[in-house]
Each structure stands twice: as structure tokens, then as C-alpha cells.
């Protein structure tokens, strides 16, 4: 199997876009020249974080792990808020949990909503990195003349998957995968919630599982908001399986988002003007990206025993073999 990868110049821009987005959501967009989107991401992530911290009385700090040298905290790991890294580090140092002052969690009526908001901030911070990466690809990988650009760039596909599992695949035309992934992930989550009596999406009770459950995105966040007043008051024999299912659903959604990003990226690059093919692990003889068309690039299949080619439009880049015998 061979995959098309962005040009080296694009790849070099993706790395800082991702890194700076994790540091401060929006910064990656700003560096990529998307100033308006940078502002949206920055305010969306910081408002949710600060409001969430305020509503929960900064009790989020009780779920984090400080790494210290002497008395100085050098890193405060708080999941998933750390997806919005820098501001989380600052806020957790500036304010103490009100429980440290003797208040009980039950004194904070909005704490579950606060946890939801601050957790959303971290997850959105992580996905801002994917979105910034997609923006860099869209801005730097120009479309060949005569070709139509895909409807959405890879970052949007990943973001739509966060909104609803399978939606990123749906908009890129992969209806079968959309149904399959969306149905499987949401079904697993709902089964898990049922096994836990709809009380197992609770940070206070299961903080580690909760961090994974938050990765489910829109469906999970909505469920969390709707079930914030539900508590487990009796023994549930299958609650462990329920927790495993709901948390796995969150992680599976991250895999689905990665796949949506990758497939949308392949769609984008397949009509791009500058194409590079690299071998990926896969069965022998399956090399190359199938395609037809005059001119453009024909791939020899990433050094594997296969034949195939990248769809070529008129006036494509002349093929030049690289070290693995690929054509680029």
C-alpha cells in the first residue's frame, strides 16, 4: 500500500502548527495565516476553560498530578484539560481548589457542568491542532488546474467526527464507513451508559475513565449534561463493563477522527499539484494509488511489487524516483 504525503515544505509547516496549537489553541492558526479562525479557537478554548474552572470552584485541581522539583511544580498534568496546555498550567498554579479551604463538593452545585466545560476546552485544544494542520494542507497544497478541490479539508473532517462519530466520513462521501463507525461507536457508548445506569459519566466517581469518555465529543458531552444529576445508588453488576465500553467509545472516536483526517488528506492530495508517494506497511503487490488520466504521475508502488498510479491531470509534475524507487 502506498500513501500520498504532503510536500516537504508543507510538512515543515504542519509541525509548528500542531505544536503551537496544543500550547495555546489558536496560535497554530495564527502562524498559518488564519487570523480570524485563530481568534475563534483561542476564545472558544479559553472561555470554556476559565468558566469551567470558575463554576467548579477549581476542584479540577484535585484530579491532576503535579510533577515537582523541590517545592516547585514544573508540570501539572490534568487530563483532558492539558490539551489547552499553557493556560491550564497557569490557572492551576494561580488558584487552589475550594475543597482545600474546607468546602465539600456538594457545596458547588454547578461543578459537573464546570468539569464538562473545562474538559471540552482540552479536547477542543487537541482538535484545534488537527484543524490547524488541515488548514496548512489546504493553504499549501494547491489543486491542479482542471481539478475540483474536495468539499472539506482534513482538519474539518476530524472536527466533524468530534461533533458526531462518522460525520467526517459522511461529508467526504464515505457513507458506508460513516454508518458503520457512527453506529458502532455511539452504540457502544449507549450500551455502556445503560450498563452503568446512566450514572457512570461522572468525574468525581471515575476521573480516569471520565477523561477517556470526554473524547467522544458532542454525543458524550450532551449525555454528560443530561445525566449530570444521575448518581449510582445501587450495585450495578456490569458497571465495570459499562465504564470500559464508554471509555473505549471515546478512544475509538479519536481513531475515527484520525481516519477521517487521513482519508480527507488523501482526497485533497490526490488532486494536488505537488505529490509525493511513500510506501506504507501493507500487503505486497498492492502498491500505488489507483488512478487513471493522462499526464501527471504514475506510481511504481512504493518499492513494493505492485503497480498503480496516482490520478494524473493535465500538466502534472514529471515523475522523479526517490530513494525507495517511488515516483514523486
Amino acid at each position, binding site marked *: 500500500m502506498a500513501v500520498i504525503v504532503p510536500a516537504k515544505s508543507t510538512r515543515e509547516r504542519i509541525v509548528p502548527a500542531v505544536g503551537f496549537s496544543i500550547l495555546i489553541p489558536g496560535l497554530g492558526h495564527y502562524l498559518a495565516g488564519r487570523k480570524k479562525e485563530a481568534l475563534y479557537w483561542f476564545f472558544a478554548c479559553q472561555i470554556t476553560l476559565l468558566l469551567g474552572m470558575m463554576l467548579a470552584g477549581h476542584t479540577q485541581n484535585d484530579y491532576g498530578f503535579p510533577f515537582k522539583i523541590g517545592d516547585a511544580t514544573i508540570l501539572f498534568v490534568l487530563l483532558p484539560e492539558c490539551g489547552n496546555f499553557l493556560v491550564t498550567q497557569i490557572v492551576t498554579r494561580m488558584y487552589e481548589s475550594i475543597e482545600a479551604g474546607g468546602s465539600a463538593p456538594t457545596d458547588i452545585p454547578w461543578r459537573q457542568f464546570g468539569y464538562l466545560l473545562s474538559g471540552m476546552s482540552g479536547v477542543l485544544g487537541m482538535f484545534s491542532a488537527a484543524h490547524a494542520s488541515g488548514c496548512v494542507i489546504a493553504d499549501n497544497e494547491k489543486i491542479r488546474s482542471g481539478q475540483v478541490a474536495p468539499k472539506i479539508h482534513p482538519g474539518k473532517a476530524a472536527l466533524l467526527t468530534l461533533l458526531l462519530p462518522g460525520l467526517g466520513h459522511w461529508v467526504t462521501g464515505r457513507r458506508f*464507513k460513516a454508518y458503520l463507525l457512527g453506529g458502532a461507536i455511539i*452504540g*457502544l457508548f449507549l450500551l455502556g451508559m445503560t450498563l452503568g445506569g446512566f450514572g457512570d459519566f461522572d468525574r468525581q466517581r471515575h476521573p480516569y475513565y471520565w477523561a477517556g469518555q470526554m473524547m467522544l465529543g458532542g454525543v458524550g458531552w450532551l449525555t454528560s449534561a443530561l445525566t449530570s444529576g444521575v448518581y449510582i445508588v445501587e450495585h450495578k453488576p456490569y458497571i465495570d*463493563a459499562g465504564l470500559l465500553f464508554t471509555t473505549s467509545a471515546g478512544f475509538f472516536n479519536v*481513531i*475515527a477522527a484520525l481516519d477521517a483526517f487521513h482519508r480527507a488528506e488523501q482526497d485533497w492530495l490526490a488532486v494536488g499539484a505537488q505529490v509525493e508517494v511513500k510506501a506504507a506497511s501493507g500487503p505486497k503487490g498492492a502498491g500505488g494509488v489507483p488512478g487513471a488520466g493522462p499526464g501527471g504521475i504514475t506510481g511504481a508502488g512504493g518499492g513494493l511489487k505492485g503497480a498503480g498510479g496516482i490520478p494524473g491531470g493535465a500538466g502534472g509534475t514529471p515523475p522523479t524516483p526517490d530513494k525507495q524507487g517511488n515516483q514523486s
Partner: protein
Amino acid sequence: MINSIVMFVLLVIFSLVLSIVLSCYREDDKSAILKGMARRGAVFFVAVAGFAAVAYMISGTFLLPSS
């Protein structure tokens, strides 16, 4: 009380979902996804069921306090 049949069904469901996610990640073609699902789901199911069987056997023999 945990029911073994329910646990068996839950393992089948989890194996199915895992195989769907993995196959969709690895493949992009409908027939390849369906083909990969059966293989990956069966491998995961057999591996977990195998571990469970071994754990059950040694808990009833070597790990019994009286033995």
C-alpha cells in the same frame, strides 16, 4: 451476580465494535472492511476468551489456597 452468558455476549459486542473500528482505520473499501472485520473480531475474541479460560483454570487449581 455476574452471569457468564451476559459476559460472553458483552465480549462478542466489544469484539465486533473493535473489529469495525480497526478495519475502517486500515481499509477504505467496503468489501475489504467486511472481510477484515470477521478476521480481526475473531482474533480478538479468541485471545480474550483464551486468557479467560486459562485464568479460570489456574484459579481453580494452582491458585486455590488449599492446593
